[in-house]
């Protein structure tokens, strides 16, 4: 472990609910230090009352996303040196979600919208039937594959200005999951999905600003998935199915 050669001034959002303010802390600066390391240091050694959320520390669980210098990021895989330079590091809770305390947000609205978008499996077979064969090079399978690595971190949701402007908008993650299931040969709810994503808060609200695709830490492309839903819902509408 490298010896600390200097400290870094870190500004962290502290408060409960809608009220709060940034407070500054001096944290030892190391090489290869992640933003989550910085937050953990403060909670371990400076102020144990700091609330934040994390689990795996390796970019798999999607629970540690925060706003870092105004941009949504997965903090466990974000190196401080790459985002802060010599400047002050500012860490805040994710945008577009209600704050519980400090850096921990209430993710309920985010996950509720997954259900609202019918981004849930609609089974087409019982356990007694043969398992469906899905070939890896099947065109639909490839479309489903494109979004399958989503870790539900809500970085795209926090990056989206359409979510910020329209509380009913389902958001990039839920819509991408709906698109994945729409292209899943095993899913029996294609019409249900199209009806769910074509409503008032659905895919046609997207302004194609591209923040979701720009910030997705797994380099997925929710904007492409939403464009796919726009085409699918319009085709269904022209055929009189919506």
């Amino acid at each position, binding site marked *: 472990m490298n010896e600390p050669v200097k400290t870094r001034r870190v500004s962290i959002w502290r408060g409960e609910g809608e009220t709060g303010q940034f407070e500054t802390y001096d944290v030892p600066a190391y090489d290869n230090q992640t933003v989550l390391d910085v937050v953990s240091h403060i909670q371990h050694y400076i102020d144990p009352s700091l609330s934040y959320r994390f689990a795996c520390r390796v970019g798999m669980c999607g629970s540690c996303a925060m706003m870092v210098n105004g941009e949504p990021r997965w903090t466990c895989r974000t190196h401080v040196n790459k985002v802060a330079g010599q400047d002050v590091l500012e860490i805040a809770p994710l945008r577009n979600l209600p704050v519980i305390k400090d850096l921990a947000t209430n993710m309920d609205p985010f996950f509720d919208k997954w259900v609202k978008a019918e981004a849930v499996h609609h089974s087409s077979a019982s356990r007694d039937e043969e398992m469906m064969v899905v070939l890896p090079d099947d065109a639909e399978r490839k479309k489903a594959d494109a979004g399958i690595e989503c870790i539900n971190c809500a970085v795209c949701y926090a990056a989206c200005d359409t979510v910020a402007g329209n509380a009913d908008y389902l958001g990039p993650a839920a819509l991408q999951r709906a698109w994945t299931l729409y292209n899943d040969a095993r899913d029996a709810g294609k019409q249900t999905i199209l009806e769910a994503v074509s409503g008032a808060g659905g895919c046609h609200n997207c302004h194609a600003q*591209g923040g979701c695709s720009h910030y997705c830490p797994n380099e997925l492309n929710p904007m*492409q998935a939403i464009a796919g839903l726009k085409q699918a819902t319009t085709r269904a509408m022209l055929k009189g199915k919506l």
Partner: protein
Amino acid sequence: MIRPHRRHPLFLAFLLHRTSGILLALFLPVHFWVLSLALTDAAAFDGFIRFTDLAVVKLAEGLLIFLLAVHIFGGLRLMALEWLPWTAMQKQLAAGAIALSCFVSATFFLQVI
């Protein structure tokens, strides 16, 4: 100031598209009002035509053509994004729309100056 999470190429393309649309919407009523002068007040219309001979007005016309072009080409990019098979080159297409708009407006300006 543009907030950090908005400082990426496609948001800036979105901003330019919407801003150009608003400015064109503000321009159109003035445009139609001036055209109406040709029917209602020929002298005022001739006066306005002489006003457009000023170099600064021609520059403004060049900017107007840029707004029009960037709104058209940016809009075509969005329509292609939503209705054609997906292309991953969205940033390049947005940059291309702006470059094409600069070319069109500069060509217009060089012809009228």
